[in-house]
């Protein structure tokens, strides 16, 4: 029974990992630029949720969409002001630019909000369901279900719509896309916006059951990176599957080895993965 409980906990958390990781896979797959500030985007969304609740007394039905819209705008601005100018520059510029952004976001948050851990009341989305002995918390269930629905939605957007085809065309070949009349810049700005919006939703959902502090971002950046590596670059279904796997691995290792070492297992898994399959578990060479 404890096994089922661990699996279900892991899947619900993993779904949220999958959501923000699919944002990263979109950004990365589209333009081959890594976003080192991805976890800090999630952190920002978590603070949006926290301040919406404490100042405006509104629930997730309000702050999750707000975080999504806010982060969408932020992602577009980051693309237009920073990424667009460095993405065809030297490798060093591409890598350090978003790393600098991560520092600015994290330490501005530290400055503005202090290092204290804050959290939303656990009763905000209250209730625990008992399903044949497996306990499901309403907050995690809501987060997991929303995350899976949105990840699936993102996949459908990319593969089934005209807009998605245009975005994929730009990611495939910028110049060729431009030749057939697709303007690359708006598409890539859109990819950054959507990728950031995914972190917005994910951050709003995670804040329901996870503490908020200025330095939560780093571990999310790494988690997203591990997930994208595991799932294959640019693949949304891969990110979903990998996110779920990582959620379950984390929940098992936290149970057996203690919460302090759960990150060790995930990062260790990743380093081991680099050894055996540098192209990712489901990725092609």
């Amino acid at each position, binding site marked *: 029974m404890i096994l089922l409980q661990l699996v279900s906990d892991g899947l619900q958390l993993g779904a949220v990992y999958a959501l923000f990781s699919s944002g990263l896979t979109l950004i*990365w797959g589209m333009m*081959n*630029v*890594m976003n*080192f500030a991805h976890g800090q985007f999630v952190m920002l969304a978590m603070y949006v949720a926290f301040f919406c609740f404490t100042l405006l007394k509104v629930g997730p039905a309000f702050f999750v969409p707000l975080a999504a819209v806010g982060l969408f705008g932020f992602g577009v601005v980051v693309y237009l002001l*920073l990424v667009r*100018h*460095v993405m065809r*520059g*030297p*490798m*060093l*510029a*591409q*890598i*350090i*630019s978003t*790393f*600098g*952004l*991560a*520092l*600015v*976001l*994290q*330490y*501005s948050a*530290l*400055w503005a909000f202090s*290092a204290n851990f804050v959290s939303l009341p656990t009763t905000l989305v209250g209730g625990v369901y008992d399903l044949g002995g497996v306990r499901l918390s309403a907050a995690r269930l809501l987060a997991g279900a929303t995350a899976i629905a949105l990840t699936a939605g993102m996949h459908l957007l990319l593969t089934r719509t005209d807009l998605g085809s245009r975005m994929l065309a730009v990611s495939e070949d910028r110049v060729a896309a431009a030749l057939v009349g697709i303007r690359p810049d708006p598409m890539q700005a859109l990819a950054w916006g959507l990728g950031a919006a995914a972190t917005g939703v994910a951050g709003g959902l995670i804040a329901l059951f996870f503490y908020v502090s*200025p330095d939560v971002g*780093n*571990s999310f950046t*790494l988690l997203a*990176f*591990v997930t994208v590596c595991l799932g294959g670059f640019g693949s949304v279904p891969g990110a979903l599957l990998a996110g779920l796997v990582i959620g379950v691995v984390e929940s098992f290792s936290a149970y057996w080895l203690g919460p*302090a*070492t759960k*990150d*060790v297992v995930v*990062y*260790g898994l*990743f*380093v081991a993965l*680099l*050894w055996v399959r*540098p192209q990712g578990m489901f990725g092609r060479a």
Partner: protein
Amino acid sequence: MIPLRRAWPVAVLVILAIAPFLTANPFYQRVAALVVLAAISASAWNVIGGYAGQISFGHSIYFGIGAYASLLLFGRFGLPPIAGAPLGIVASFVVSLIIGPPTFRLRGHYFSMGTFAIAALAEILVVNWKFAGGAIGLMGPAMPRSLADLLFRNSLPYYAIFLAVLALLLALTHLMQRSRMGFYLRAIGAGERAAESLGVPVQRYKLYALLISGAFTALAGSLYAVMIGFVDPESGFGILISVNMVVIAALGGVGTLFGPLAGAIILVPLQETTNALLGGSGTGAAYVAYGLIIMLIARFSPGGLAELWPLINRNGRRRAA
């Protein structure tokens, strides 16, 4: 008569050698020592990150190994902390041989992210390592037992030691620049596949570069521990230690001999004054500034100050991008 191009590096070193003796202010002297220390680790990072173009965010591992080797030998065996320097260097070789081959199969962002993950892993492991003080860290000697403890009230002796190490590292880098290895590394940095197709043993030379780079970073860590007398997981293995090296090298100009030193001369006093003014490093204001500087470099001058140098010095040759 010596041509100017040859003379100015010597002039730089002479100015550096006498500069801190001109002031009696202990704050300035301390900052001067820290500038040179930062220049050592950034110049060490520059060998693999600058010349070979492999942007590592994992160098905090080496720095931490050096610092911990020093204070572990003191704390557990009562040896003078500096005795940890050779141990740290040997340990850095072992680490390079373990993490080099798998991470070197990654290119560009993937390499940076991979080294970032390994550094994060190392920090968590050290936090949970009871023998090495866990999250609390390790202390150096409180009182000097002999001269070998290298415990001075004044920062000038540290400054002299650090400057000697920096001079050695820069001399080695200078020799490397002109040797076969320097050409190989720059070829790798410019394009790995192209270098490989021309017969450069890419993996082997990247490993050589990492061995040198890691050893000097570990040495910098040991020297840090000797001077500060304290290290904890964050000040030894924290990701910001890696970030510091990358920013300092990037500001001055990666892949240039004196770039990291120039970066350190600008950034370290900035950081120390910000911390002194705002009271401790807890506020993080210095890192907001760091982040902004990084973004500005990336956006407007990815070659760092070295890229701007030819604009003000018409005799200088523009470095090939």
